[in-house]
């Protein structure tokens, strides 16, 4: 069952009609086949035009689409020899972050990915992609492992944010995020991040303090969720749409601001329409970025990464 977003309703209606007609057409009626073809063309055109001009708020919904490919899909399709490694060696294992060793395009690397989960059970297992300090400390541990063995680090960013809870605060959520940023910035191996869905604030930047930050066309990356921003600045979460616009959280705006390096095109109708194609495209972009960074002498990576962040944000939207 395809899950339709609110603004996809007109497409949903057309596609619903097409399905109905297809059920009728088992007799092979030529008129019906023609009508199906006609509607299909119309639906495709509508989908294309809808997705060509998504608003920031619509993109936020696409980025959170329940059928959007997640870190586990990317790992399954792109990473060979994947060997999960778990635990922060301090307190626990946080399944909001998938982690392990594997090969991407033949290159052995450390892989980290925030996973939201796909059904009620797995969402609970992965805590909706909201990591606790253990998740970030596990990430640090694996980044240090990467450093020790000269392996690049690949991260898949997809989180509403770090988990806000009593235990998380007691165990130093702020410190865990801060340290992850510090460790990531200090590595002298390549670090490549891809924002595949929702880049939620500090919880995202903890895994995205990278040499290259790639981002899917309809992914979002923001200092605060549009709902959170609206409830603070507009005093009402009903203004989430306005907040999404104001925050400039789309891949296109972030690219203009120089915060991300590459926008990766999604299939027409969004990544959830063709997950495997999306993953394959991301795989090619990742491999390109990885090999470009692997060509840089190891001793220069850290300095270049620092320079990139230090120069960031001086221009504005222009």
């Amino acid at each position, binding site marked *: 069952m395809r899950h339709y977003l609110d603004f996809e309703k007109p497409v949903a209606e057309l596609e619903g009609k097409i399905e109905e007609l297809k059920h009728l057409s088992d007799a092979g009626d030529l008129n019906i086949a023609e009508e199906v073809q006609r509607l299909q063309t119309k639906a495709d055109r509508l989908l294309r035009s809808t997705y060509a001009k998504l608003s920031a708020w619509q993109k936020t919904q696409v980025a959170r689409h329940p059928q959007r490919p997640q870190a586990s899909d990317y790992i399954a399709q792109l990473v060979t020899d994947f060997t999960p490694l778990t635990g922060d060696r301090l307190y626990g294992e946080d399944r909001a972050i998938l982690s392990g060793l594997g090969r991407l395009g033949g290159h052995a690397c450390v892989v980290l990915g925030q996973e939201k989960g796909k059904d009620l059970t797995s969402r609970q297992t992965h805590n909706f992609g909201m990591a606790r300090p253990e998740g970030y400390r596990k990430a640090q541990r694996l980044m240090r492992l990467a450093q020790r063995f000269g392996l690049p680090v690949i991260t898949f960013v997809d989180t509403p944010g770090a988990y*806000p809870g009593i235990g998380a605060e007691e165990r130093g959520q702020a410190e865990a995020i*801060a340290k992850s940023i510090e460790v990531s910035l200090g590595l002298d191996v390549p670090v490549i991040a891809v924002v595949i869905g929702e880049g939620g604030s500090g919880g995202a930047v903890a895994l995205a303090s990278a040499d290259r930050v790639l981002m899917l066309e309809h992914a979002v990356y923001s200092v605060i969720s549009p709902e959170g921003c609206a409830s603070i600045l507009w005093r009402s979460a009903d203004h989430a749409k306005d907040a999404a616009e104001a925050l400039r959280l789309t891949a296109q705006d972030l690219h203009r601001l120089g*915060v991300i390096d590459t926008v990766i095109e999604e299939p027409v109708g969004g990544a959830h329409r063709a997950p495997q194609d999306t993953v394959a495209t991301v795989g090619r972009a990742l491999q390109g970025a990885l090999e470009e960074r692997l060509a840089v002498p190891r001793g220069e990576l850290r300095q270049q990464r620092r320079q990139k962040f230090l120069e960031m944000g001086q221009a504005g939207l222009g």
Partner: protein
Amino acid sequence: MNWISDYVRPRIRSLIAKQDVPENLWEKCPSCGQMIFHRELEANLRVCTACGHHMRISAQRRLELLFDEGEFQTIELPETPVDPLRFRDRERYTDRLKKARSKTGKQDAIVVAHGTIGGSKAVVACFDFAFMGGSMGIAVGEGLVAAARLAVLQEAALIAVPASGGARMQEGILSLMQMPRSTIAVEQVKEAGLPYIVLLTDPTTGGVSASFAMLGDIHISEPGAVIGFAGQRVIEETIREQLPEGFQRAEYLRDHGMVDLVVPRGELNATLGRLLSLLTVPSLPRAAEIIPLAPPEAAADGTGPGEPVATEAESVTSGGELESAEREPQEPRGG
């Protein structure tokens, strides 16, 4: 008999008659509700005379009480893009900025100053909560970068004093990017072998706590300061439980291993001065170098296990193995 009723009251009346701001003369403690006369409150460094609650203070006041004799020099901060996102909520961000500037007389939410603390050179990067809740945008990030560079240049310690609700929403992703940027700044100080101390004041939350503010060599906090990542309301809404007593307060963080010392405002200069003098032994190499387990003289001196051992500083100096000639030149770090 009471100093306030005998001496101050008549004077207040005359002042009230002249000015139209009587509420400024008495301030209510937000913690215990006690009304405190302003001059008494100022003399007590804006710490409640009844309950010891540490009220928020301006960056100016903070710098005066941190530096020796209240003497320091502020530095001009680099120009940064204004309103890079052309952000507008119910109000334009540029208008909010204007208001904050005229209210505080500051350009943005951070002031950077240098001077001495307990005789040691120090650069202090101090937030002003009165300026848009001390929120961190590009200007604040740039202030931290400038403070770190100055510390490295002067071979001084860096002391960051956050008082901030977190990132400045109106600068969107660019405010989020101040987390890695400020982290790089303090890393440069640490790599130069200089102390980086964080004085966490009320409040230190959000993206500020989750970056440079939790990366100090030493974390000091004022009593009762709220320090944490997530806001209390957000946590309550998420877990639908009551928060424990003292949650996210300085003492709570100390008890959970995130803060070294909780120090009352009046003792900050002395404590920081002592720490800086302990951390900056001038004759020693400061970077991580191998220090012999025991100095050659140790055995001859009869210093064995269980005996009080010399500090590392003494052992290295007496061992004579790591004299200043061996000090490695610092690796040059570009901007």
